[in-house]
């Protein structure tokens, strides 16, 4: 596996958590999520629209987030996504799992190094 595909797989497996984490901060619309993701990761995470929107629709369908059209202060209407209680619970579970996973990875890679 190349480093590029390794990173792609990591990102693919964690897109939902990244979206839920951003929406925990505040409700956002699609383009805003992409911008925030890039900004918060200092350009490390660059998710395509073809990944973002299907993930958003899936998360809505599964009840982790909800969406509604809102008029922004600047004028135009945008479909804004926000976290639900179920989404918050899922995010807490994912974070806990991630902490355990990262700690174990660090232990193993540090020992190997």
């Amino acid at each position, binding site marked *: 596996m190349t480093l590029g595909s390794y990173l792609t797989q990591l990102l693919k497996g964690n897109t939902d958590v990244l979206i839920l984490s951003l929406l925990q901060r505040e409700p956002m619309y*699609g383009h805003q999520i992409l*911008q925030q993701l890039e900004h918060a990761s200092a350009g490390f995470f660059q998710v395509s629209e*073809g990944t973002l*929107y299907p993930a958003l629709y899936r998360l809505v*369908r599964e009840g982790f987030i909800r969406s509604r059209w809102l008029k922004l202060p600047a004028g*135009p209407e945008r479909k804004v996504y926000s976290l639900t209680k179920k989404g918050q619970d899922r995010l807490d579970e994912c974070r806990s799992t991630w902490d355990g996973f990262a700690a174990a990875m660090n232990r193993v890679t540090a020992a190997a190094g």
Partner: protein
Amino acid sequence: MSSDVAGYLDRLRIHLRLGGSQDADIMRELAAHVEDRVEELVQRGVPAARAQRMAIDGLGRPRTLAHLLQQAHLITPWRDALFGAGAFAFLAAVVGGQLWRAPVLAVASAAVVVAITLYGLWLGRPAWFYPWAGVALSLPLVAGYIAFALLHRAAGGDVTPIALAGIAGAVLYFPVGLVVVAAAILVAVRRDWLDASVLLSPLPGVLVLIIAAHRAGGLASGADPVPTTSLLLFATYACMSMGALLFLRAPMRHHKVTLLVGGALLLLGGATLIAWPDGGVVTLAGRAVLLLAFLLSPALVARHA
């Protein structure tokens, strides 16, 4: 909205076909997204025309995006769902009408199935592809039986060129057949194990037909062509056609799993009660376990893939 954006969204709409209000909602959101993206790029100093091109390119090919959005919604458009369900209806007609006993009709039916399956592959495996691919997968099963029947004839001293072809086919059958089925399942599982289960679903019925035909003296025996089994399988595949329509249109994943498991159990129970009413509960339970293990095996593959 520029003509480039409108053109892209039109092409996306052609492939999407989720339903009026959903399509309109997605188009509205993506148009807003392109607008935001163009504004962002222009602010960064990119010329407007190039910014628009980049924003559209960022969405990817309309067909690919439509496919990803359909998967996210899980709902298959009516036209695609009907076409997918048509695979089982076609199989019901072939089995019920015993078209498989006439070589020309059998070959023509197989050619139709293979052509539709290849077309589905070319389109990038839309939801309707899997029922047709499942029917196509049953062809090696039938071909294998024919090869073994010819081999059997050769073993009886009737060594003809056709019998020699049967020997060659029989030798190749197991490795090639296994590789084809395993590869198809692995490819389908990568996307969704439920697709792989749909792929497997026509096979048990075809196996029942082959066993019945064999017990009746083989394909070329000229004996009574298993009318009870054919009728039963016709009814089974007709029900599966309805089941596939509901499955493809089901909005939630657990609905699909329920339809798959519930439908298989209902059909097996019904068919057993009609054909073998004295079979006993233990036999029925054993068959049910085997059938479910077979249909749900892709879930196990997906867990370990």
